[in-house]
């Protein structure tokens, strides 16, 4: 005979492993001290502004333009990274060629290279008298000190996010699936475009989101190449810095709050899409 006990609410499942209290204690204290208190300070500061002040500050034309530029260039750069990131991941996973391992390691360069270094290097390259800039100028293409320069810097910064999210999923593709498409008469192009790439969509979306989120907040690699012309090529993080230097804390806080809210909403949307995809197709990334 079995007796069913009423399920008691348990904070954690019993385990013989020791150290839970200590580990969780350290984790939570550090998290609260370093992350949560400072971030709630920002939330509190923006709430003391009052709604109408906040709205005025957030909808200031220069602020709006800066947000538009930040989100717009980050979006374009993330799109470009989807194309080149998937291409790079494909080449790294599928082909064996001389120098493959070096290229694979190089993909992480934007993670490892300080953003300020990337910033001055890209600026020097794309300046009108730089190695690449001098080739583009005769064609009437101006990269450095324009919004296009921002996009280029953000492509650099965001590339590893797409490659490193897509690559492991690509490695796991079952070869039988490709063979199945071939036996059904699909050409190689049809197999890749209708079977393989759609299967990668969740991973690509995640990579896009990560690259986009990083691009929106990016500062160091952008400010050198952007030209920083108000209303034209001034990104939102730079405007925060400018407002801080003017001791205009309310304005800085308002811009930061808007950026954080948009970023979190985006992450939430993308997480929901992921969860939906997992429920439906049995996979996500």
């Amino acid at each position, binding site marked *: 005979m079995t007796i069913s006990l009423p399920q008691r609410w348990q*904070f*954690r499942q019993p*385990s*013989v*492993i020791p*150290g*839970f209290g200590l580990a*969780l204690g350290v*984790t939570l204290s*550090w*998290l609260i001290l*370093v*992350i949560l*208190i*400072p*971030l709630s*300070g920002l939330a509190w*500061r923006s709430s003391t502004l009052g709604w109408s002040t906040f709205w005025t500050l957030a909808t200031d034309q220069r602020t709006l333009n800066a947000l538009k530029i930040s989100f717009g260039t980050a979006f374009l750069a993330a799109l470009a990274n989807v194309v*080149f990131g998937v*291409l790079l991941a*494909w080449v790294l*996973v*599928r*082909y*064996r060629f*001389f120098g493959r*391992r070096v*290229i*694979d390691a190089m*993909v992480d*360069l*934007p*993670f*490892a290279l*300080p*953003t300020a*270094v990337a910033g*001055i*290097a890209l600026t020097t*390259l794309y300046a009108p008298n730089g*190695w*690449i800039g001098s080739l583009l100028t005769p064609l009437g293409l101006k990269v450095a000190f324009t919004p296009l320069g921002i996009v*280029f810097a953000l492509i650099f910064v965001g590339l590893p996010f797409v490659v490193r999210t897509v690559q492991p999923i690509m490695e796991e593709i079952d*070869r039988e699936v490709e063979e199945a498409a*071939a036996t059904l008469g699909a050409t*190689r192009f049809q197999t890749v475009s209708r079977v393989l790439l759609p299967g990668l969509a969740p991973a690509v979306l995640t990579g896009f989101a990560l690259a986009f*989120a990083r691009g929106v*907040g990016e*500062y160091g690699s952008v400010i*050198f190449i952007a030209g920083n012309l108000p209303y034209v090529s001034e990104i*939102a*993080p730079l405007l*925060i810095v400018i407002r801080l230097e003017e001791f205009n*804390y309310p304005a*800085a806080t308002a811009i930061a709050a808007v*950026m*954080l809210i948009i*970023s*979190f909403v985006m*992450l939430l949307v993308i997480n929901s899409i992921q969860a939906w995809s997992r429920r439906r197709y049995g996979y996500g990334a």
Partner: protein
Amino acid sequence: MAHDAVAPASSGTSEMVRSATSESRLARYGLIALSLAFVGLFLVLPLAIVFTEALRKGPGAFFEAIADPETWAAIRLTLLVAAIAVPLNLVFGIAAAWAIAKFEFKGKAFLTTLIDLPFSVSPVISGLVFVLLFGSHSLLGPWLSSHGIKVLFAVPGIVLATVFVTFPFVARELIPLMQEQGTSDEEAALSLGASGWQTFWYVTLPNIKWGLLYGVLLCNARAMGEFGAVSVVSGHIRGMTNTMPLQVEILYNEYNFIGAFAVATLLALLALVTLVIKSLLEFKFSAQIAAARKH
């Protein structure tokens, strides 16, 4: 086949089969060429120009730029900040991974999300939150200044901002690794009479040491290279609160390109060393994980 420079990944099959699960030779060469061009343009050239610009006027000018006392002060400060921030996040990372990977408890997913939070916050905002917390207009500001404690525009602020930005790095590496390894090794050690600390020291730590090193490496690279957050809290006081990335910016804005790129060279070397060790670890690391999966 061995002579084919661009064989598909599953070599050992003949040409007609390749058409079933690979592309034509032309497409392969084309895609590889396109990727190489992209990598060259966006990754190799920026790295190359750092070194060529620094050495534009010869090694003499390069070393002269590095020997500048303000640059030295920046190097010392960067090392100091990393030496404080990295161990702090190392301890935190191990504690967080232990709690999350080895136990099942309510709110675990939420905790993991919170740990990742700094990844989705702009570096500038990461600095801003500390300005709002410790600045002269803040609640704490007047109290701090009346007690003579300087957080902003001083080393403590720089350390705090760096800790904030590098917060998730070690934990992020360890959590999946420790989750994959499970708890059976620890349970075996405990059943043999080992204490909690002994279990951690002799069983868990050897299992995660490469992953730990990997996380520390990435954490350190970011700590030394952080720009946006540190820039907001540092106050840019020359020889005092300038880290190496800030020194790069100042020199560059003063049109001292040799100096800026000389400091940048040091940071680029740090990045290269990080990449090399990372690649080596990935080589070893994946073997370790593969071995763990076998039994």
